[in-house]
């Protein structure tokens, strides 16, 4: 039986260095956190400070004033965004949820669904401007016009992977017992999936859609050469249309202080919309989406 011939001596220098390293690590980690939170806080403060004062009735109801003149609003951009997002949701939500249904209810565990899920995740990482070019080529070129249709399609296609993934996740959480109960009652599968499984997962699915919605609400790049932008009232689907992020982009780069003011205000509106969505999503998912399920 081998014994300890060279017992370990206590190493004083090393001992102090270890405690120093430990404290240094804590300090650096806290510092990193502060440095990360700081820009966020700064952005929010700036948005409120610079944008809130411009949020008046004019802002929400009037068109942009002639170049540089005060008193205009971003009403057409807000309406335009609403139209585009409505279109996008019409395309993205049904297809996305359907894809999620397939992944969860029919293809669970199969190689195909793994591939679909993987591809959806990868697709989420593709720059949105690429999506814009593709839809430009697909719709704008043949129709020879920029249009709300094209913009909405671009945004809608972008929603599909996100909605599919979140829907799948929420559907997976529905306990098996519920599906079995439905089948036991003699309900056809398609009915059970829609009326029972999907219904149970609905709160979570909706919040997933909201997440995707909030994400594309702020997208500018895919609209640059699809919706293009429009200085006037327009809600026609085959004409260019304005959108809030697009308008912010143009105004931010412009030379007029008035434009900059509007850009801040528009950004504040966008951010409020998004923050509310994110907070809601967090709230719903943390409370347990399926409280009524069991």
């Amino acid at each position, binding site marked *: *039986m*081998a*014994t*300890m*011939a*060279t*017992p*370990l001596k206590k*190493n004083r*220098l*090393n001992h102090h*260095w*270890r405690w120093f390293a430990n404290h240094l690590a804590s300090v650096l980690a806290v510092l990193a956190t502060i440095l990360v939170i700081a820009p966020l806080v700064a952005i929010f403060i700036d948005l409120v400070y610079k944008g809130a004062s411009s949020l008046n009735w004019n802002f929400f109801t009037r068109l942009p004033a002639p170049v540089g003149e005060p008193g205009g609003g971003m009403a057409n951009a807000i309406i335009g965004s609403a139209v585009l997002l409505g279109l996008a949701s019409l395309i993205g939500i049904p297809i996305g949820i359907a894809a999620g249904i397939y992944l969860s209810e029919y293809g669970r565990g199969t190689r195909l669904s793994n591939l679909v899920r993987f591809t959806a995740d990868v697709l989420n990482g593709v720059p949105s401007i690429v999506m814009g070019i593709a839809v430009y080529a697909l719709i704008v070129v043949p129709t020879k016009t920029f249009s709300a249709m094209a913009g909405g399609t671009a945004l809608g296609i972008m929603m599909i992977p996100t909605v599919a993934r979140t829907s799948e996740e929420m559907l997976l959480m529905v306990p098996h017992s519920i599906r079995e109960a439905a089948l036991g009652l003699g309900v056809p599968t398609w009915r059970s999936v829609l009326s029972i499984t999907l219904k149970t997962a609905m709160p979570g699915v909706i919040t997933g859609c909201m997440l995707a919605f909030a994400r594309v609400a702020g997208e500018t790049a895919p609209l640059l050469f699809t919706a293009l932008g429009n200085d006037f009232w327009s809600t026609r689907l085959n004409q260019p249309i304005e959108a809030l992020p697009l308008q912010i982009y143009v105004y931010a780069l412009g030379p007029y202080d008035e434009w900059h003011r509007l850009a801040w205000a528009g950004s504040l509106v966008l951010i409020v919309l998004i923050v509310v969505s994110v907070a809601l999503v967090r709230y719903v998912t943390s409370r347990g989406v399926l409280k009524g399920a069991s």
Partner: protein
Amino acid sequence: MGVGIEVNGLNAWYGTNHTLLDITLHIPANEATALIGPSGCGKSTFVRCLNRMHETNPIAKVTGEVKVGGVDIYNDTTAVEVRRRIGMVFQRPNPFPTMSIYDNVASGLKLNGYRNRRVLDEVVQRSLQNAALWDEVKDDLKKKSGASLSGGQQQRLCIARALAVDPEVLLMDEPASALDPVSTAKIEDLIFQLKSQYTIVIVTHNMQQAARVAERTGFFLNGRLIEFDSTHKIFTNPSDKRTEDYITGRFG
């Protein structure tokens, strides 16, 4: 050489759950002491109080006195120092999967700043020999990862890892419960041999195991130490009826 452990009025909580009530005992040096009792009786918590692992849980609380080799481990020294001098082997083997066998055993040494190749080689070999694993792995020390061994080998690797930092006490929390009978027997043989150099405290579900390896045995029930005596006495002529009930299998 091992040292003795004095425990006086030890109380422990998990949040509001009072898991240990007024434990007082003396664990002799260079002996194996077994702790038995039904699930949830507090024996694991007790052992984790001995090397201050209990407090790593944020809702944990400890009061009372624990002296190891005369040193009050809660007031006279740091947790880091305590854990270096009191080694622990866990229920499920937990070797470091990203490290080789050699690096696993040497990990504790490297933490303490020992870099000399020669010293490390020597200590790694000795620890693996003491853990009865040397012959099986001596050719693959740096080639195989710690997690590529069988369950029994992994546990002996964990024992070697604990021994490498030259502790005075070795705590073993049901070390063989996740292993097959052959590996279990090997571990028990090991404890027999390690006794002469270290003080060993072993928590076990298996009464036969306690009878085989330990000189003293303590019986825990509902957070209290019911009886603490020589193993022989506990198993042949226990003083407390509850001990007798447990031994004879009436519950637990």
